[in-house]
């Protein structure tokens, strides 16, 4: 490889880029021929997995391939029910299988790590967890991912390995290679929250990478305070603005009515998977006094489970439990139909809901970054943003968003009221300023940083 040559990259994530909805032609069953996605219909035969990581990495790969920064790209991910290999243009997707019986153990440990990093009390006792059967399943999955990559490497001479998200942390150590390994940590990292018994374990695995990338300056500082001496870089997550559209007023109206949202009701929109950490309960509690004053207002909650909670994924039931709790809370507060649960929506409907929203809210208790804020900004919608999100460092309170402490629901209620009573000029200013800020989180701006990252670690 000479400097400037296109790079061959291996990407590893937990969530697969593509989930098949059908099994067209017994995909990949008896032969080793990869399933060509170009022969299938998106939305009918398959869908691109929603979620921050896949949504971020796919446009990046497409752009860098178009710019000849990347040529051959292989994407290895967990997909218990998918065929072994799929092709999406010049991207090859490799699915790692995991038997159902191993899934629960893996999911258990993954949730525990996630909880520990987010400072959840339930995650205590982590030291014990490292010696359980569940932990051996977690190691099994990471090793199976690493082995899939190693087998690929026999035929593909990769320039680098780009491993995404905390679930895959151990993969770096398990990859026996001299090639550079990059790890992208997508969730928050607060040194003060890491349980003592997890520190050595985490540190050892972080050290197996040549570069660690985090989503905000605060996480970078925290990782250094944690004692990580390796290379760390901050890079904001990003979306591809081309993925978002502005539907006509008629389509927006029809989409809202289909969800039972009356024509003139102000809509307060929360987008995020059903998870206690996403703080939907905060938004509902703050909304209760607001709803009393503005009976027409509707709080719309968009989102369902993640890949982990889906039937085709890990089948964890956290999201269903959380939704039931939220519905009980809505009933308890007497909010009835004023809170709308949409579940998962497709991109067009999501665009409609953003357009329909008066403003959006990110009420997360902890949030690695908060790409939904960027989505809201792309629709020029003002946002109320938890100060615990990584994206908060891009927000200047009162200029491109309003920040709040997710524990202070009275303040959140005040901010909701503030925007609901505004004559529109403030909302417009916030939305416009947000739109300008969104340029820092688009694939266009990120492509150069990602290219530099890849060139730096590969020396090419």
């Amino acid at each position, binding site marked *: 490889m000479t400097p400037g040559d296109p790079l061959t990259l291996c990407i590893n994530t937990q969530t697969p880029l593509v989930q098949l909805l059908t099994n067209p032609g017994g995909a990949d069953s008896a032969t080793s021929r990869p399933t060509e996605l170009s022969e299938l219909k998106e939305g009918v035969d398959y869908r691109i997995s929603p*979620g921050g990581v896949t949504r971020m990495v796919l446009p990046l790969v497409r752009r860098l391939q178009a710019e000849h920064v990347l040529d051959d790209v292989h994407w290895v991910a967990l997909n218990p*029910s998918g065929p072994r290999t799929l092709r999406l243009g010049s991207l090859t997707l490799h699915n790692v*299988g995991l038997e*159902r019986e191993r899934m629960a153990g893996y999911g258990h440990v993954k949730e525990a790590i996630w909880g520990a990093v987010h400072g959840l009390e339930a995650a205590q006792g982590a030291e014990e967890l490292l*010696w359980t059967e569940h932990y*051996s399943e977690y190691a099994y999955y990471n090793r199976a991912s690493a*082995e899939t990559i190693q087998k690929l490497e026999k035929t593909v001479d990769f320039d680098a390995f780009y491993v995404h998200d905390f679930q895959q942390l151990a993969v770096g150590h398990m990859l*026996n290679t001299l090639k550079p390994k990059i790890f992208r940590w997508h969730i928050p990292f607060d040194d003060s929250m890491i349980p003592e018994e997890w520190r050595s374990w985490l540190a050892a695995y972080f050290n197996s990478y040549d570069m660690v990338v985090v989503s905000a300056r605060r996480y970078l500082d925290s990782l250094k305070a944690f004692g990580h001496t390796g290379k760390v870089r901050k890079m904001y997550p990003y979306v591809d603005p081309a993925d978002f559209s502005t539907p006509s007023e008629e389509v927006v109206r029809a989409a809202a009515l289909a969800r039972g949202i009356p024509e003139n009701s102000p809509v307060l929109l929360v987008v995020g998977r059903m998870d206690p950490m996403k703080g939907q309960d905060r938004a509902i509690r703050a909304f209760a006094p607001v709803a009393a004053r503005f009976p027409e207002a509707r709080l719309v909650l968009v989102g*369902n489970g993640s890949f982990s909670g889906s039937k085709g994924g890990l089948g964890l039931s956290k999201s269903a439990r959380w939704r039931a709790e939220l519905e009980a809370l809505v009933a308890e507060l007497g909010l009835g139909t004023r809170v709308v649960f*949409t579940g998962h929506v497709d991109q067009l409907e999501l665009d409609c809901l953003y357009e329909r929203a008066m403003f959006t809210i990110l009420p997360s208790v902890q949030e690695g970054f908060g790409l939904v804020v960027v989505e809201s900004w792309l629709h020029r919608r003002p946002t109320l943003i938890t100060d615990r999100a990584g994206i908060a460092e891009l927000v200047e309170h009162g200029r491109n968003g309003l920040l709040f402490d997710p524990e202070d629901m009275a303040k959140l209620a005040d901010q909701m009221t503030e925007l609901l009573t505004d004559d529109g000029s403030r909302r417009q200013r916030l939305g416009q300023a947000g739109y300008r800020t969104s340029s820092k989180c688009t694939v266009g701006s990120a492509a150069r940083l990602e290219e530099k990252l890849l060139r730096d670690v590969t020396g090419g």
Partner: protein
Amino acid sequence: MDLTPYLLPLLIFGLTVALTALLSRLAHLVVEQAMSQSNPQVAAGAALLASVVIWLIGAVVIIQQLGISPDILLLVVGLLGVAALLSLREQLENYGGKYFSDIYSPYKVGDSIRFREHEGKVIEINAMTTILLSEDDHLIAVPNSMFMREVVVNTTPQAWRELTFPVSIGGSVDLAAFEGGVLRSLSKLRTRLDRRFPPVITTRSRTPLSTELTVTVMIRRPEDREAITLEVNKRIMEARGKAPPTPPKAAGDGRGEPPATPPPGTAPPP
């Protein structure tokens, strides 16, 4: 043309080769099993030796059957052996030193050690020498055989805690399953091990035939070192015996349910 005079010796030759192969495999398994509590590398070496001895005996028998006197073969092998021992004495000592240092010496690449007047970080252990990097950036090459005769001090902090076990598994063995088995088995020793560090399996090298690994555990009390070494060895060998081969590359190989079509509105969002 009557082929009988040729067929019979050929048949006997074939049977002898087959029997030798069978006995060799049997000897390998018996020795491996008998040494299951020893260091895996020593056990593997002994099993290989047993196998080679059986093949040598088999070769002598085959040669006899072919009507050739085995004395000449034995003489040639013997002379070659003596010549090799004399001419490669030092190299063999170093190689032996390396072999035994892998197994018994309490240092590894990355450790800081002191040997005579030399001190430095071990950066390489090759077949002949151990290379140290001194604090003043000098490379010090110490013949491996020296480590078998001299006192070596491992100055790495808490070096006594770490036990590293070299393991070789067949190239067809499912490494993920082997690792899962080792972790499950070693979890039974957790009260004797440092709870913050679950066992770590590291791949060192691999060929189509075998994968060289190390299993690292951290112990809690120095006096447990020997007992834990024996027990961990035994458990690694057991896990190796139980590890299944890598699953074949085909869909529907126990990788969960077929793709489900989720009902509208229940697809997984972020």
